[in-house]
């Protein structure tokens, strides 16, 4: 059995095991998302074929990031949401992080991410009303992070 198949089996097995923490582990429940190379595929892997509405979500990130190894990204929204996902198209794989919004949670997340080159950051908010909201923001990177 080659290594790739073996890893694949491991992922399937992990998906069947209930999460040890009470939380949702998107790495285990949605393994396809994390392997996707494009943002569109990653969104498809996570949420399925959905229509994205470009409103009600804001991303704050530097226009020009000097250090691609740590780009501060802030996602904000006033929507009632179930989850928030963050993607970019500069790295080998697209998905960066998925946040689960707890009941009554405030969507105001900040995280530092890596980008190999200039690219676009996409945030998708899964609303409680079943609609999906998104925002795309281009970021210029002068020195690539993530081993680039």
């Amino acid at each position: 059995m080659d290594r790739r198949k073996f890893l694949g089996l491991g992922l399937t097995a992990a998906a069947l095991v209930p999460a040890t923490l009470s939380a949702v582990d998107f790495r285990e429940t949605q393994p396809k998302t994390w392997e996707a190379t494009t943002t569109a595929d990653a969104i498809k892997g996570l949420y399925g074929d959905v229509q994205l509405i470009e409103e009600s979500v804001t991303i704050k990130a530097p226009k020009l990031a000097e250090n691609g190894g740590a780009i501060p990204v802030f996602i904000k929204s006033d929507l009632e949401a179930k989850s928030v996902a963050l993607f970019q198209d500069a790295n080998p794989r697209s998905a960066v992080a998925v946040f689960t919004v707890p009941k009554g949670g405030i969507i105001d997340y900040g995280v530092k991410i890596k980008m190999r080159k200039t690219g676009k950051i996409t945030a998708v908010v899964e609303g409680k009303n079943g609609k999906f909201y998104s925002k795309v923001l281009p970021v210029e990177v002068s020195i690539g992070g993530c081993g680039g």
Partner: protein
Amino acid sequence: MKVKAKLKDDVVKVKVLAKHVNAGPEEAEKKKIDANFIKQVVAKCNNKVVFEMSGSGFISKNPLFKFKFKGAAKGDELEVTWTDLKGNTKSKVAKVK
């Protein structure tokens, strides 16, 4: 790991600084280390999950997470736990100030 939680106008602002190499497969190969990154972060306060995130190797080294939540008073304990790809976990309890 460092955790700071500050209460202001009903909203608790939290900053979490985790110490971790956070290297994806490509980066690990270049640095000749094993790929390992924080795959999940969970924060609990008063037995309620207030923050949870599934991560990837594209979150920066020694990552910094910021989030806000409601429904805590001064002195409440906030417990932040991360789990990485190799199954290591680390927890830290901080009081809401």
